[in-house]
Structure formats: C-alpha cells, structure tokens
C-alpha cells in the first residue's frame, strides 16, 4: 500500500529529513520555514531524539555543528534573515568539515523584507554569504516529491563529503499543499557516517583524508581526543600557518566539491530533445516554466526546460551543453538574475541568454515568460 500524503512543502522536507535519519534539530522558527520546527518539535522527542528551540540562528547552527560532531545527523531550518545570522557558523562548518544540513526557505529580502511572500533572492548568498574562498553544495526543488528526495540527498552528500549542505527552496513550495508519495524504506539509499577504524588510545588524525578524499570521523567526546578549529589546521586539527598546510587544506575544501561536478549536479529535462528555445529554471519558478513549455508545445513551438536541482556547484557542463544546441535561452527566476549571470558566464554565446524574472513578491506567471519571448522574437509586447 502506497503511503500518499497531501501536505505542505515544509512537511515534505521534514519527512525527508526523518527518512534520512536526522536525529538532531536546533533552530529558531521563522516564516516561511516555521512548519519544519513545529513538526519536528512533535516528531523528534518521542523517538528519543533531540529538538532544541535555540535563542537565535547563530546558536542554532552552532548547536547543529556540536550535534553533528558527536555523531548525529543534524539539521536546522530558517529563512533569509536567519540565514544571514548563520553565516559565521556556516563558514566554521565548511572549514571544520562538519556534515550538516541547513534549510533556507527563501522569502523576499534584503533584511526582514517580505516574510510571507515568494522570492529566490538567496542563491548568491548560499554561494558567497560567508567570507573567504570556499566551495559549497546547495540543492533546490520544485515539487514536493523532489523536495523529499533532495532533502535525503542533502544528508547523503553532507555525510559523503563531510560538508554543510544548503537546501534552498521558496515560500511557494513551502506553503503549497500537493501530493507526496513517501518512498518505502530502503527505496532511497542512505549514506551513513564513515567512522574511523582507529582503535581507542591509538592516534586518530581527524583531518587526514583517505585516498578517495573522504575523512573518517570519530564522535567528539568519545574514543579519541582531537582539536576542531576554524583556523587553518593540520591533519591533527591543530592551527597552522605553514603555507603548504594552508594551500593543501584550501585546495582540499574546494576540490572535494568543485572537482565533482558530475556527482553533485542534478538536473531534470523536459521536452529538450528538439527544442529551439530553452528555458532554464529551478524551484517553484520551474513549475511556471514547465507549464509554459507544455502550452507552447500545444501550439507546435519547440520549447524545452532544463530544471536545475543543484545550484552550487553550478552545473556548468550541463548548462553549457544544453544552451549550445538552441537558438535562445531564457532563465526564469524570481530575483534580479542570479542564475542568469551564471548561465551567461558559461554560455558560449551569452548574448543569446535572456532573463524572465519577477521581483515583486508575486509568483511568476506563464505570461511573464511569454512577454520576454515576444521581445526576443522582435514582436514587442502590448503594454
């Protein structure tokens, strides 16, 4: 018997996290992500797991880092204002290689902005909100089914690559209700933490990577004593300014993500095979884009959609290849063109890349996209 639900996106994310084995949540509720904290406050304690409502978002991510170090699958959930506060701890998690998942349900910004309305304005913040050179993984989703799967995937990638993973979706997905079919147990494989085989009382080097680049962990406070720091550090975890250590650590932090584009970039394609016009979109905007594609196909127009589910590392190769075969590309998003700039960067003919966007807190519509297509075709719009 299939387990079908009719629920909000925030509930789909929560169920995905529980499916992935998340057993530690620390957060500070904020619209439009609050339902995640609300639901987990009921779900986690009866299972003997940890739910903490923290005093703010800085503390929330710090608690998550601590929870993860002691062996938990840990997560927090927030929105733009809270995500801004988390940046310091996010940088620490990147530097100290802490597996964890940070959900950012986007609302209009900057600052407290538009608490209850839709936006996709945090794409660049997910990439560059923290200071210093680094790499990051950020996933998104445009349906509840994809959101569930990508929440599980976020935990899997966090454990595989010992890194924080950002799950970035928007208010529309968060609050809308639609059908979700819960995958059966085992249907989506789960990645469990790679633990060190070093016995107690034998030297454990927490930052000594194996040949495959992975770093086995040891629960903090358990069998081994080791140091964790936000400073550049050697394989023991102790601070170092040795140029070779610094260069080695930074290149490791970047390469373990940027060097694995094929493993980390997930996309979906609709009607792209013979497309002359390509839409590129993600999150809730991809729903409008796909609707527009089907309406165009009904009229015999060769249009297709490339939907991005990984935003960072940016799917350069997939985007470059998809853009190369079409007459024009229109990026559909609800911001001033954050993914648009990336597509232009990787396209061989950036002048054939256009932006259809909306920045007023309203959900982008098929006519919004069609207007841009008319302008590209030299037909003008009847304003």
């Amino acid at each position, binding site marked *: 018997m299939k387990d*079908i*639900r*009719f629920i909000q996106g925030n509930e789909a994310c929560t169920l995905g996290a529980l499916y992935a084995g998340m057993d530690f949540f620390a957060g500070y509720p904020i619209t*439009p992500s609050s339902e995640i904290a609300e639901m987990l406050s009921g779900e986690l304690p009866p299972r003997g797991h940890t739910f903490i409502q923290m005093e703010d978002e800085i503390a929330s991510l710090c608690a998550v880092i601590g929870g993860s170090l002691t062996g938990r699958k840990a997560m927090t959930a927030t929105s733009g204002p809270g995500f801004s506060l988390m940046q310091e701890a996010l940088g620490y998690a990147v530097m100290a290689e802490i597996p964890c998942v940070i959900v950012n349900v986007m609302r209009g910004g900057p600052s407290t902005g538009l608490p*209850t*309305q839709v936006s996709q304005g945090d794409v660049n913040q997910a990439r560059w909100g923290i200071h210093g050179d680094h790499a990051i993984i950020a996933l998104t989703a445009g349906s509840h089914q994809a959101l569930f799967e990508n929440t599980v995937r976020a935990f899997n990638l966090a454990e595989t690559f010992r890194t924080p993973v950002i799950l970035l979706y928007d*208010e*529309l997905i968060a*609050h*809308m*209700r*639609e*059908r979700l079919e819960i995958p059966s147990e085992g249907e989506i494989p789960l990645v469990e933490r790679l633990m060190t085989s070093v016995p107690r009382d034998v030297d454990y080097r927490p930052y000594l990577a194996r040949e495959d680049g992975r770093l086995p962990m040891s629960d903090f406070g358990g069998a081994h004593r080791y140091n964790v720091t936000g400073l550049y550090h050697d394989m023991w975890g102790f601070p170092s300014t040795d140029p070779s250590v610094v260069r080695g650590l930074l290149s490791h932090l970047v390469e373990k993500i940027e060097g694995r584009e094929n493993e980390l970039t997930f996309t979906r394609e609709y009607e792209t095979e013979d497309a002359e016009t390509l839409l590129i979109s993600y999150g809730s905007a991809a*729903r*409008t884009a*796909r*609707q527009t594609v*089907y309406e165009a196909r009904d009229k015999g127009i060769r249009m297709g959609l490339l939907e991005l589910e990984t935003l960072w590392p940016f799917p350069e190769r997939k985007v470059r290849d998809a853009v190369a075969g079409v007459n024009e590309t229109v990026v559909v998003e609800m911001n001033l063109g954050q993914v648009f700039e990336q597509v232009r960067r990787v396209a061989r003919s950036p002048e054939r890349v256009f932006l259809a966007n909306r920045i007023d807190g309203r*959900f982008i*519509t*098929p006519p919004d996209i069609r207007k841009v297509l008319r302008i590209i075709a030299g037909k003008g719009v009847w304003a």
Partner: protein
Amino acid sequence: MLKLIFTGVGGQGIITAGIILAEAAVLEEGRYATQSQSYGAEARGGLTRTDIIISNREVLYPKIEQAHILAILHQRGYTAHTGTLRPGGVLIFDEEAVNVDDKTDARRIPMPILENGRGANITLLGILCALTAAVDPEAVRKILHRRYGEDSANYEAFDRGLSLVSERGLSPLLVGF
C-alpha cells in the same frame, strides 16, 4: 481540470474546507491537486483566500487567474476577488452576508451557508459536491472521518449542503474538466 477559489474572513474555515476538498481528490480518488492560500498577516477576522486546483494529471502552476467556481462567505471577499471568476463562472455565496450586484457575469448560486455556524465551511463542501463533479461526496466523508472521527457535527453540516442543492431545485452543473 477544475479551479476553485474560496474566500471569506479568518475563522470561517475556508482554508480547511479547501484542504479537505483537495485531500478527497488526492487521497481518496487518486487524482492530483494543489491547495495554496494567500498568506499574509491575516488572522481571525482578516480576509482569506484559498486556491484549489483538481486535475487528472500533475498540477504545475498552482495559482488561479480565472476560477471555474468562486465561493464567497464575506462581502469583503466579493469585493476583492470577484474579478478572479471566469466569465459566466459559478458564484456560490452566502445569501445573507454577500450582496452580488447585477453587473456580475456569473451563474449565481445564493445559499444559506453561514446559518450552519461553525459547520458552514463543511456545508459549503456539501453544496459543491452536489452541484458539481468536483469530488464524490463519499470521498469527502472519508476525509471527514480521518480528520474528525465517528462523532462529529461535520457530517450533518455536509449533508445539509448536499440537501440544500436539491431543496432549491438545482441540478448538477457541468464545470471544469
């Protein structure tokens, strides 16, 4: 595809009614649906609206520009949202609380909805089930059972909605799909 908008003020239960209707379509009839709502600073007493789309295939774009059916439980909802009804669409409204002016291009269905008190939102669902093929009444009853158990005034409120349609001599309308 059937597109419905319910509007009223906070506390009347129209969001819940929208969720129940969509749940009936998805969980009991195996169809697809989306339910979304205007999400503002509205609390009890504020204007509320929910958009429900029921379809036999996946619903992508979840907002409604032109509804097949608009149900209104408060005059403010009429003022704010009448423009979202497609020309000649079905306008169901509370006959006491809502005044519909003569210029509104709609098939009008005035009904004594709010006199059913706290069950008014469920009475509205009964009216919808009897008047349209939105969902099967039995599917809604099953959802009511899941949510409220055996002993609930909601079944009476629902049946009241079903019988109102026949009492008024109305026959089922062909809308949507």
